[in-house]
């Protein structure tokens, strides 16, 4: 039986629509950033992932979250 972790998730811009700005969620230990994004049900086909931040530091999609982390998810912007 795995331990669980509590993560504070912050969504930005379009990712908030129909979802939330900030929410605490519980996941099994070893959960990655992309697994959380998929669990929340963010439409990354329409709005691809931009920057991922955990506790103020840039991380990749495979980053493993820890208990008490704050995880921020920004959609990509690339227009000019």
């Amino acid at each position, binding site marked *: 039986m795995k331990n669980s972790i509590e993560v504070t998730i912050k969504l930005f811009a379009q990712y908030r629509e129909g979802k939330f700005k900030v929410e605490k969620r519980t996941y099994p230990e070893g959960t990655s950033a992309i697994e959380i994004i998929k669990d929340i049900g963010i439409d990354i086909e329409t709005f*691809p992932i931009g920057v991922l931040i955990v506790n103020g530091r840039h991380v990749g999609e495979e980053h493993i979250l820890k208990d008490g982390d704050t995880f921020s998810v920004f959609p*990509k912007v*690339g227009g000019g």
Partner: protein
Amino acid sequence: MPSSSLLEDLESQQIDGFLSYDIHHNLKEKYGISYYELEKIALENDIIPLKYKRNANSIKPNEQLKLLTSKVAIIGCGGLGGNISEYLARIGIGNILLMDFDKFDEHNLNRQNYSTVESLGRYKVDVAKESISKINPSVRVFTCKEKFDGDFEPLKEYEIIVDALDSPKTKLLLAKKAKQYSKTFVHGAIGGFSIQTATNSTLQTIYRDVTGGAETTLGNLPFVASFCASLQASEVVKSILGKGELFEDGIFFADLLDNEFFIV
């Protein structure tokens, strides 16, 4: 060396240390030199073109000269590049390279500076150059009507490279080139109500792949483009003058829909 009679003319015709456009123009004609050259001589002698009067003490006379002799390359002349080039021309950056292969289309009118119903179908860089010459004739504008594909030798000659491109793919290529040439690189991007900007970033943490972002679905809005362009122009000027803080330690994000602003 400027002729002594030119210096005497400048000295006798300046008013309270300022040089009006009419006198600037007349002396340029009289001595057969360019607006740029005459402006440089004036600034070297602490005479400020009147058009810069409201730059006042934010930009000191020696800094105004530094801006005039600086060289900035703006890659992309759409929503960002159009505005950035105007801001830089107005503040007095003397050498600007504009690169964009595209012509004005009707769907540019909502946000792209210099686009009008009359300029539809014309090359963006040609219209920009004409417009800048009317705003500040001292600015030397160089244009290139090619698509940036990762390689562009003339970039070596510019001290600052501004990213006003419209796709992560080309933005990444430009960041790479700027790093290779050891140039200051001012990134900006927009999509929907959101913007981001960063200086001297390789963009690796921003773009994990080359696909487009929110802009492909949400488009680009006029005040979002000019907001981002303002920040980029500010980064350029501070970088040239070596003062203030740059967005070097993080990426600045703004969401104008929810009015949220932060550096991560």
